[in-house]
């Protein structure tokens, strides 16, 4: 079976500063990954790691500086809008900014149906929309004629997911879909993702900084740091036994809801983030507890150990 999405050596550079002092920030640095049909693939990392930029590139909202993307085997082109927006849809972080506050929420649904000619009459359109709403636990009567501010955050996020499902996409890009929803309500939305994968065969590119939900819902995961993928593999392997020092730091820093499992050690935080972007060699060398001399000058390569890709000099030795 072909990969739904394949990204190879994707790079995106931004120029910052003014005419006199320009620096180039590489937000996405030589990133490669793939997403299979009916799987949930997570891009995880803290803010500034490049995951949101990668999402924008995949959705075609920005142009890559270098690299290729393939969708279902076709080289992507922004001009081919139909397959792009029908087959690939997105869910954003803040449900309240996803919708125009001055428009009713159902108008977006009807507009999608009309633009993609998904129904032949108003009645068919309503039936189609109602079916998608039921997938997320709502009905058409509940939501017809209402404005975004009449719903709670959790409800609106579900509606946003339903909107993404209207065109029967095969790939959903979910950019931090639960970070603005209360912690106690997150599970219901994340369970919904699982159902979409199992019952409809939809794949989800799940972008998050919350490793707890990532562990719970994903099949495979890639950890990103300052534009690079530093570790990638199945979620069991990567999160239960992280190899890259940054992955280890990330996992250890998740606050456990158990007072017996408080943090034992202290953490040092990065000083000014821009410096890390511009490092020669491994970008994590400034904070890495296992840093070696080679890390400060040579960029590590991707090493495959136990079916997991790790971008770290520590493992170059092991392979030999």
């Amino acid at each position: 079976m072909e990969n739904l999405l394949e990204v190879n050596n994707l790079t995106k550079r931004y120029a910052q500063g003014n005419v006199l002092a320009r620096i180039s920030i590489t937000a996405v640095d030589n990133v490669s990954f793939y997403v299979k049909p009916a799987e949930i693939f997570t891009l995880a990392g803290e803010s500034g790691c490049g995951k949101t930029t990668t999402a924008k590139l995949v959705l075609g909202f920005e142009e890559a500086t270098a690299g290729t993307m393939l969708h279902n085997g076709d080289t992507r082109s922004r001009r081919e809008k139909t397959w792009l927006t029908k087959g690939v849809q997105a869910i954003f972080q803040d449900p309240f900014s996803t919708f125009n506050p001055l428009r009713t929420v159902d108008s977006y649904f009807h507009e999608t149906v009309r633009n993609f000619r998904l129904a032949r009459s108003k009645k068919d359109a309503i039936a189609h929309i109602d079916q998608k709403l039921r997938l997320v636990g709502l009905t058409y009567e509940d939501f017809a004629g209402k404005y975004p501010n009449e719903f709670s955050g959790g409800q609106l996020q579900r509606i946003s997911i339903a909107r993404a499902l209207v065109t029967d996409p095969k790939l959903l890009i979910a950019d931090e879909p639960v970070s603005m929803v209360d912690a106690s309500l997150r599970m219901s939305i994340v369970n919904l993702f699982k159902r979409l994968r199992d019952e409809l065969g939809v794949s989800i590119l799940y972008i998050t900084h919350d490793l707890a939900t990532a562990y719970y819902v994903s099949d495979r995961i890639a950890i990103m740091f300052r534009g690079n993928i530093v570790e990638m593999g199945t979620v069991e392997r990567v999160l239960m036994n992280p190899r890259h020092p940054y992955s280890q730091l990330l996992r250890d820093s998740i606050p456990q809801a158990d007072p017996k499992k408080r943090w034992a050690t202290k953490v040092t935080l990065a000083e000014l983030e821009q410096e890390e972007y511009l490092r020669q060699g491994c970008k994590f060398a400034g904070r890495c507890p296992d840093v070696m001399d080679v890390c400060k000058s040579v960029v590590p390569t991707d090493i495959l150990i136990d079916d997991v890709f790790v971008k770290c000099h520590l493992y170059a030795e092991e392979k030999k």
Partner: protein
Amino acid sequence: MRTLIDLFKDYRFSVAFLVLSVILILAILSFSSPYDPTVWYVVPRDMKPSADHILGTDSNGQDIFWQATFAVRNSLIISLISALVSRVIAILVGMIAGYTGGLVDRVLMFISDSLLVIPLFLIMVMLAMMVREHMNLVVLGLLLSVFGWAWDARLIRSVVLSLRERDFTKTAMLSGTGTVKLVLKEYTPFTMPLIFSTLINNMSWAIGLEMTLAILGLVDLNNPTLGTMLNWAIVYHAILLERWWWILTPVILSLFMFIALYWLSVSISEYLDPRTRIQRVGG
């Protein structure tokens, strides 16, 4: 209907509405004027207000009241043409520049900024002198509109620029909406208050500018407008000769118009402002 009722709760809107209604009635009355406004000496000159002539007569032999109805009508026509045409240009330029960005944006803003820095008054005087023979209401209106769009185009552009980055733009794109429809449908509720208030402001501005040009004698003085009435009154030394009824008529009429237009613009744009609209929307 509900909108109007809500608007009337604002005293500014109510007063403005009243005043402008009266002015509109005056303008419509002009069609039933017993006198031809462009002809002189149809009535005895320089008579004080009386039963026959409510506002008296002027030195040209015209009934001031009926003159005023024509003046109001013509001033309104000029200002409406100016305001409407310049809105269209401002909206087109602002939206295209804001959404497209890049070179198109820079070129359009360059043109717009150039128009802003040109000393308006000198150019207007120069153009008015050149076009004098063909000067009529429509020409004057168009002339004014050429200079009335630059500032507002930039305002609209900045609104569009900020809206373009919002998530709901992306949602509309993902719903398959084309660019033109997106800009018109999604952004118009946000640019509406701006367009409305600048329209009314532009009307005020146009009337004021017309009056200035008229006092300088650069328009067709035979066609009565608020400006020309003022011009004639000054030329015939109405203040010196204490013919208050003549000079005060255009002054007070235009004063009322300016205040009414301002209040109308402020109350409507406050009502249409997305920030207050969002509070009202959705029960």
